[in-house]
């Protein structure tokens, strides 16, 4: 894919987002040489990390020596722009981030935070992974997921529909079906 004549590779960005949470285990995981190597092997050139309230600071890199260019920030009002320009999104398991990414049709790896007290969030990620809309990983298995993933096999997520609920509510209250 790289444009070898100029020595400039096509920019392919991985965007990592933890939302408003603190998820150092994920930031630490994407900062490991194992994960970065796998990302490079898959042709990604840039890594942008939104680290939220976490305290672990990843190492920045310009990526000039052919390695992955790494940048990070805590919060931003333009998460949507980062998602839009990403070629791959690695996200925490919050439903907001998951559906925003799926709606943009971006390949997504959801990493479940195993330190959360009430960890119901893995339910959603696992269900959507079973339906082949995304990949689901743990911080320590992220490099294996990246190595094994086949983005072609992911299915687009059909957008949700609130009309069935609205219909039942209207019927219950005695409103006519349509007007």
């Amino acid at each position: 894919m790289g444009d070898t004549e100029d020595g400039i590779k096509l920019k392919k960005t991985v965007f990592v987002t933890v939302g408003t949470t603190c998820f150092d285990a994920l930031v630490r995981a994407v900062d490991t040489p194992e994960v970065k190597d796998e990302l490079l092997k898959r042709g990604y050139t840039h890594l942008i990390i939104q680290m939220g309230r976490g305290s672990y600071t990843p190492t920045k890199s310009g990526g000039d020596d052919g390695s992955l260019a790494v940048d990070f920030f805590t919060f931003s009002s333009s998460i949507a722009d980062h998602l839009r320009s990403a070629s791959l999104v690695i996200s925490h398991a919050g439903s907001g981030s998951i559906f925003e990414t799926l709606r943009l049709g971006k390949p997504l790896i959801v990493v479940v935070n195993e330190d959360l007290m009430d960890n119901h969030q893995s339910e959603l990620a696992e269900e959507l992974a079973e339906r082949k809309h995304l990949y689901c990983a743990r911080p320590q298995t992220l490099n294996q997921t990246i190595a094994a993933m086949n983005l072609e096999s992911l299915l687009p997520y059909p957008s949700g529909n609130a009309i069935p609920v609205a219909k039942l509510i209207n019927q219950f209250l005695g409103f006519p079906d349509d007007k």
Partner: protein
Amino acid sequence: MENGNGEVAITFAIISLTLMLFRVLYVIYRSGKPLRTEARGALSTLIVLGSGGHTAEMINLLLVLQKDRFSPRFYIAAATDNMSLQKARTLENNLVDENGVKEVQTAQFMQIYRSREVGQSYFTSVWTTLVAMAHAFWLMTKIRPQVILCNGPGTCVPLCAIAFFFKVVGVRWSSVFYVESIARVRRLSLSGLLLYKLRIADQFFVQWPQLQRQYPRAHYVGCLM
């Protein structure tokens, strides 16, 4: 004489307790059945917002509900959550833009104390729950909604419990609609479980078929997101 008074008091107490019990049973029986009368006017509607994903799901539902039927609308969010009311305001402002300036007065926004913050211990939450209950009671007395829409944040439990109490004592008959969050695939949330088991929700919606199989009184409605 003393004895006679005592007997009267006991008889009176037993009769009133029995009547109350019957009233509670009647309310439970009647809840969950469609309202017989055809709805004519608009219904005052309380919308309980939660953080993040919960609010996004609720907004998706509000977008398809007929606003003239569900009016006026009262939005309640946790006092620690500024984002959700902001999103509701944006939604209402867009409605005003669509329909002209007329509908400014149909929406109100309120905040409520939370019974338990994420991660708070169950022990200290006894006290915070009492404060939250009192505040919820005050808000519900002011609003007395005919329709309650909620989808999972813990703040909806006290509000819905008070709505049930209002039904029992005859202050206001309200219809409670609960949509379990899309994040709940295999198990209900604590709020959902309470409203389902105690039959406080008139209609209970789930977004995944496997949940409907476990909770047969729930309606499976597909994904809202």
